[in-house]
């Protein structure tokens, strides 16, 4: 029996940071990871530094909508490869859902699929909620409310950045999920025991929770009908910019500034690997949620032979062509400034 824990949480809540942090700990050395990303280009796989063989990317769609069969197949495939010795041994599996996933169908497959239930008992559902924008997210997105309602354990992330806003968030959390334990995490730190230690939830209790949330006013009939592509019904779009030529550092800086300026809360998530002209051999990892950006992280080397810049946007009411036009205009101007400067010398 290989216990499976599910990490869920809305876009930009900090799931990958927490998971990446956990996987660096000795206690998590024997863990396989399945990552499901919403977006045409997956990056989380490149951003989690661990053994490649035990990290699987499910990228052809959202787990909650159409990939439940893929999840079960992937679990069995991992088990088969472990047993045949083609990948390192592991004793547990973590599934990281996409930020827009409804965890209910994923949990139902793990519990109701006979072969999955036999080999892969559900250990824990851990939901990450961002201390800064979590309250607004819960008010605006039914996916986030459902992720919270189905949690065995709730982690409030980014508490080091939030100031006093976390107090209000506690009340909202308790109104949606009054019983689960709540832990605070700053800078992505978390006690590893939260994911696997202790008693596993009873399958019947998990199914009751799913049923109970589905019948609340927060998840009324209309919402349920719309769910299957609430991602689209809510005007949330995902797209990627990919380019082979490096980007000047100043262009990236102006680009991020303009995105924050004009998109604000509508920029649900931006993440990317960027080839910077001044340092092309080391990719810069960029992360942004709404108007909050982390300073770029410089990786020691490119994770694969693909050295192209890849930026994934998940946003509401944001046009891909506007984003491309913005970057084009900035690059053209920076290029002109460089040429003017060279002409003066």
């Amino acid at each position, binding site marked *: 029996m290989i216990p499976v824990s599910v990490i869920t949480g809305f876009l930009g809540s900090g799931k990958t940071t927490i998971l990446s942090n956990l996987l660096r700990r000795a206690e998590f050395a024997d863990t396989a990871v399945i990552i499901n990303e919403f977006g045409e280009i997956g990056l989380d796989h490149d951003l989690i530094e661990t053994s490649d063989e035990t990290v699987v990317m499910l990228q052809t769609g959202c787990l909650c909508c159409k990939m439940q069969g893929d999840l079960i197949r992937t679990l069995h495939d991992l088990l088969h490869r472990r047993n045949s010795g083609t990948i390192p041994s592991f004793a547990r599996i973590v599934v990281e859902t996409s930020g827009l996933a409804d965890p209910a169908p994923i949990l139902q497959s793990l519990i109701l699929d006979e072969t999955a239930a036999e080999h892969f008992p559900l250990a824990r559902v851990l939901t990450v909620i961002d201390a800064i924008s979590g309250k607004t997210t819960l008010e605006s997105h039914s996916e986030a409310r459902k992720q919270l309602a189905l949690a065995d354990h709730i982690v409030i992330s980014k508490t080091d950045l939030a100031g006093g806003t976390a107090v209000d968030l506690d009340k909202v959390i308790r109104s949606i999920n009054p019983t689960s334990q709540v832990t605070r995490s700053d800078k992505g730190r978390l006690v590893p025991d939260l994911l696997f230690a202790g008693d596993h939830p009873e399958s019947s209790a998990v199914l009751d929770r799913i049923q109970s949330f589905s019948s609340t006013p927060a998840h009324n009939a209309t919402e349920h009908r719309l769910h299957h592509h609430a991602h689209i019904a809510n005007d949330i779009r995902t797209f990627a910019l990919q380019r082979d030529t490096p980007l000047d550092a100043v262009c990236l800086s102006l680009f991020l500034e303009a995105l924050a300026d004009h998109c604000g809360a509508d920029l649900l998530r931006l993440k990317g690997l960027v080839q910077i002209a001044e340092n092309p051999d080391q990719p810069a990892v960029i992360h942004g949620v709404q108007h909050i950006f982390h300073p770029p992280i410089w990786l020691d080397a490119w994770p694969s032979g693909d050295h192209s810049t890849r930026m994934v946007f998940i946003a509401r009411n944001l046009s891909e062509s506007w984003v491309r036009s913005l970057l084009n*205009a900035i690059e053209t101007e920076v290029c002109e400034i460089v040429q003017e400067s060279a002409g003066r010398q």
Partner: protein
Amino acid sequence: MSTTAVFERLAVLLKESLIAWQCRAHISVLQTEPHAIRVHVSDPEATINIERAPAEMPFRWIVETGGRKRAAASVVGVLRIVRQSVAPDYQPAKVRIAQLPDHLA
């Protein structure tokens, strides 16, 4: 890259932006010397004129709107001024740089 290219790219960006802000407007790039971009907004009616600042100035652009001239250091600055002109309620969301998690720092 010539000045013409910057004007053309900025005009495309402004056109895309005005659509995104649901603002009815017409944009023309004036191929005069010096080049300029003129934005005619229909509701509320207004004209915005965008020109390059003289070379001796410490900024690159001058945006004239409502009889007032404002300076911008880059196309990003021009975009912000144009949006403030067509959407008075607009408040730019300043970039906030957050601290890195320990293990990434």
